[in-house]
């Protein structure tokens, strides 16, 4: 059985983001990068399945981006993926979800993957489109935002999170693609010996030009912080007067005194 997990490297969300020179994406200088949180759930689930199925199963991790994404790839290898594909692209942030999905689909075509895991969405772009688009392009069965997973005899049983805490269970025949949500599992820390051993696992590098055939369908035209809201209201006067003002504001602007 052939498994694929697609991961993205994203900035640490505690970073301070500044627009880049063109004002269409964030400036990468000084940002610390790590594996997208939802992709960690995807890797963990894929590795668990790989461990359950044992010999004869191959788990590949794929990532698109500049050289820095190799660190995220190596983490996935240290967590238990067998080998990796690094699609080299120094301009990945300029591509839309359609193009990213097309690159992945072009790579996957003809390679007989049975099951693909992706994160539900990336923490930076957050489109939640790549996984489902890949499935559509490949004609794979697909379900999203899974919080439970099981596989047996060519059938995936996935528990999905719906609005309002309601859960649903979906069964899919392989080939299939699932997108993974918080709550699916607790990703393991890669052990240090496995981090060191991951050095010996194969990472195939492919220039993005070899796989890019689709045109851009959507362009990000602006990246900016929200306009600053006005500061708080500073009340002045003696205490009795202040209390009346505060009560009036609470009645007017909030529900606490109604």
């Amino acid at each position, binding site marked *: 059985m052939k498994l694929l997990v697609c991961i993205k490297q994203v900035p640490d969300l505690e970073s301070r983001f500044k627009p880049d020179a063109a004002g269409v994406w964030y400036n990468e200088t000084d940002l610390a990068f790590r594996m997208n949180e939802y992709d960690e759930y995807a890797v963990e689930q894929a590795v668990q399945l790989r461990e359950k199925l044992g010999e004869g199963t191959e788990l590949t991790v794929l990532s698109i981006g500049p050289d820095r994404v190799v*660190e995220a790839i*190596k983490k996935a290898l240290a967590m238990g993926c067998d080998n990796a594909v690094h699609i080299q692209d120094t301009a990945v942030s300029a591509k839309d979800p359609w193009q990213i999905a097309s690159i992945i689909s072009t790579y996957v075509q003809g390679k007989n993957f049975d099951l693909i895991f992706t994160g539900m969405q990336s923490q930076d772009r957050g489109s939640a489109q790549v996984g489902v688009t890949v499935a559509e392009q490949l004609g794979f069965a697909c379900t999203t935002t899974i919080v439970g997973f099981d596989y047996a005899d060519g059938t995936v049983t996935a528990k999905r999170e719906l609005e309002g805490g309601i859960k649903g269970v979906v069964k899919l025949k392989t080939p299939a693609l699932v997108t993974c949500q918080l709550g699916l599992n607790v990703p393991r*820390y*890669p*052990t*240090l*010996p496995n*981090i060191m051993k991951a050095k010996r696992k194969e990472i195939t590098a492919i220039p993005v030009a070899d796989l890019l055939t689709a045109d851009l369908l959507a362009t990000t035209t602006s990246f900016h912080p929200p306009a600053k809201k006005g500061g708080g209201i500073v009340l002045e006067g003696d205490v009795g007067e202040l209390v009346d003002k505060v009560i009036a504001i609470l009645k007017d602007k909030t529900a606490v005194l109604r």
Partner: protein
Amino acid sequence: MFLDLTEEQKLIQDTARDFAKAELEPVAAELDQGDDRAPLMANLKKLAELGFMGLNVKGEYGGSEAGVIAFSLAITEIARACASTAVTVSVNNMVCEVIQAVGNEEQKMAYIPKICSGEYAAGGFGLTEPGAGSDPSGMSTQAVRDGDFYVLNGSKIFITSAPYAGVFVVWAVTDKDAPKGKGISCFLIEGGTPGLIIGKEEKKMGQHASATNELIFDNCRVPASAMMGKLNDGFRIAVAELTGGRIGIGSLALGLGLAAMDHATKYSTERTQFGQKISNFQALQWMVADGYTELEAARLLLMSAAWRKENGKSFAKEASMAKLFATESANRACYSAMQMLGGYGYTQDYPIERFTRDVRITAIYEGTSEIQRLIISREILRNFS
């Protein structure tokens, strides 16, 4: 010249940071104040399973083969969250390394895997005595040969992790007539050996969760095969291994200094006095600048010493320089951090108070600052005479 970390080193640093933030930081204050060591024990076990107890140890003994730079990075990240955990990890690594360096195959296989896997919560390093601190060659614990055994009598003091150490590396005088330092041998003694008594636990200023005890040898009989390395060659081993341990303690101090400065700097951007953020005042800006500059210099000294050790170069002088500068810089950083928080910094509502207590010992254990200066100057003067 290449100053960047490898991807493996970055991943180890990230793993240590993620683990420290998720598992160590939430219990650090509670471990500092309480008597329950269970959370420490649980975390030591997890750290062992992840491979943090034998960073610079070969895979065949259960180590991670990650190297000395990775060791330094890991200790710094762990210490940012919990210095007590960090010192335990640092000493465990040192014990594994000394056994790897001088033990025979049987000794290596008997003990290193147990420390690396967490089967032993810790290993002990039994060198210091009540009358032999900075001058360990003046020790008085004796090991007397009796047939196929050695019988130890005497006591050690300030032994990290003693109540839960599975094995101790212990130094004792085997030839009391030999010139100073020439009649000491090294032994591997398992916890629970009859005659090995764990004495009173010290009440310390900081690093509370890490136990520090007296060790008493009362006619403690060990087989002659417990000797590690050659007869009367033990002191040289101790000196060599303490050198590596200094990188660990310098890295630990760096973690504390960075944690204190990060906390205080963030606070200074939130706290308002005289109608403005206190980070607007030059007095605090200079504390921020000096604190981080010194810690960055300390980091580079540590990386240099670690790199030299990892690459088989001499590193005694560099390790002492790194230990001296990192621990004293970290003490200054904690002092500044408390100034920046003012009265709040002195309370236990903020972690600076704990960092300040935890950091003080780093300029004392594994060789005081004064001993480091002695080593550094001796190494330098040697080239001028």
